[in-house]
């Protein structure tokens, strides 16, 4: 009798619980934490909101990484400052030997830009490998850089190309070298009141070839490892070698030892093998659900040799 009563009570309690949680779900069918969204229409207004709210506020660019981070409660701002209503933060401008890209420029606009294709094929190729078309429709270059995911493509590209990152706050403007921008996993040199507003990308030199190669378990997933390469040649010999890796450490990083090997010994098979080994030895990847540290290290080496070969072929130096 007692057993039956307990079973009945359990069933009723379970039923009440189901009904209550279903009602809660309907009343509040959302995953992100409670927050407010402010949508300024000018940069000045956005900067003053970030200054006013400090750590409690976060800029919302394309949201393609931030919304999942909010859902998972890995990020819990009280206020999102939505940058999508600020018209003059999305542009690609030709400024002499560089191009200037507004932080809110969508990845899709970069992918489709004739100017980018002509003057920075590395940036263009890397962009086509970011996630999927609907993600690139909204994802922005500024958002990707500020998010500083170690497996993302853009941090490796801006390191390889030695881009400058322009940030603004009510205190003024600073220009940060890409090499000084990425500090740790999802951590940059940006202060809480600062907004990344522009990226300047040096044009690819005459005689250069580039390649962005990455490997992922499924097309469009974050790379297990990826390498950005831009190599300038004169009379068949490398004069300037830029290699950067993503997915193989807490931040994207330059592969300086591999660069030196290619610079000194060229792009023959032996030099590429040595550079590939040096790249693998120089990275410090983490093990996670997707791949072990050892496997990522191997991949960093393989991606290095593929990127160098492709870049050299495109420069017309290797067949």
């Amino acid at each position, binding site marked *: 009798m007692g057993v039956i009563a307990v079973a009945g009570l359990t069933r009723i309690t379970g039923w009440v619980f189901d009904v209550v949680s279903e009602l809660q779900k309907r009343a509040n*069918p959302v995953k992100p934490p409670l927050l407010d969204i402010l949508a300024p229409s000018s940069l000045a207004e956005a900067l003053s909101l970030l200054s006013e709210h400090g750590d409690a506020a976060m800029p919302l660019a394309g949201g393609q990484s931030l919304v999942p981070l909010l859902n998972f409660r890995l990020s819990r701002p009280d206020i999102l400052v939505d940058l999508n209503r600020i018209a003059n933060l999305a542009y690609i401008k030709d400024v002499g030997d560089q191009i200037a890209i507004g932080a809110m420029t969508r990845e899709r606009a970069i992918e489709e830009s004739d100017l980018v294709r002509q003057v920075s094929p590395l940036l263009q190729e890397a962009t086509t490998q970011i996630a999927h078309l609907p993600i690139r*429709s909204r994802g922005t270059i500024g958002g990707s850089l500020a998010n500083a995911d170690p497996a993302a493509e853009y941090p490796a590209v801006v390191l390889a190309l030695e881009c400058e990152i322009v940030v603004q706050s009510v205190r003024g403007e600073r220009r940060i070298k890409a090499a000084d921008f990425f500090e740790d996993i999802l951590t940059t040199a940006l202060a809480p009141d600062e907004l990344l507003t522009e990226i300047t990308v040096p044009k690819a030199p005459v005689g250069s070839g580039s390649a962005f190669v990455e490997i992922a378990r499924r097309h469009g997933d974050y790379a297990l490892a990826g390498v950005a390469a831009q190599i300038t040649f004169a009379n068949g010999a490398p004069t300037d070698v830029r290699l950067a890796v993503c997915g193989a450490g807490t931040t994207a990083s330059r592969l300086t030892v591999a660069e030196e090997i290619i610079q000194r010994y060229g792009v023959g098979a032996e030099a590429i093998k040595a550079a590939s080994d040096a790249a693998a030895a120089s990275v410090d990847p983490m093990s996670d659900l997707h791949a072990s540290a050892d496997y990522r290290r191997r991949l960093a080496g393989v991606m290095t040799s593929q990127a160098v070969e492709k870049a050299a072929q495109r420069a017309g130096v290797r067949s």
Partner: protein
Amino acid sequence: MKAPRSVSLTVNGDALSGDASPRMLFSDFLRDVLGKTGTHVGCEHGVCGACTVIVDGVAVRSCLMFAVQAEGADVKTVEGLADGDELHPLQKLFSEHRALQCGYCTPGMLMIAIDLVNSSDSLSEQDIKVGMSAALCRCTGYEGIIKAVAAYAEQVHGKPIKRENDNG
């Protein structure tokens, strides 16, 4: 300030509005507030593609947007494809090529395919495979989906798509 606010937008040509608290995702707003349940919600963090809709001309994940961000937007969902009982050409091709089984991913697949095909004037079979990898299907094995989208691309572009066994 976290109170619901009114969001006005155009969905499939109709001016609509509804209330959304700032944290409400656009996917939930479409389904639960506007009653447009044709848009499906799968993973709710941008991986599966089931919730893909067209916003201001481009395919986006509606679960990676806040409802309040859709203020003033021109949105197209799967409900806007058919003309009465007359299916959209891509829907007919999905039927002909057995491109769906349970159908859960189909609304997202359709919206992605429409953007993919209409934003280009030429696609190869590989382009279609890469483009359609933006959404997950757990039933079909993708063959039918690729065939249907390839046939749609041929209709829209007025020329055969480049197959993998073609030279060059």
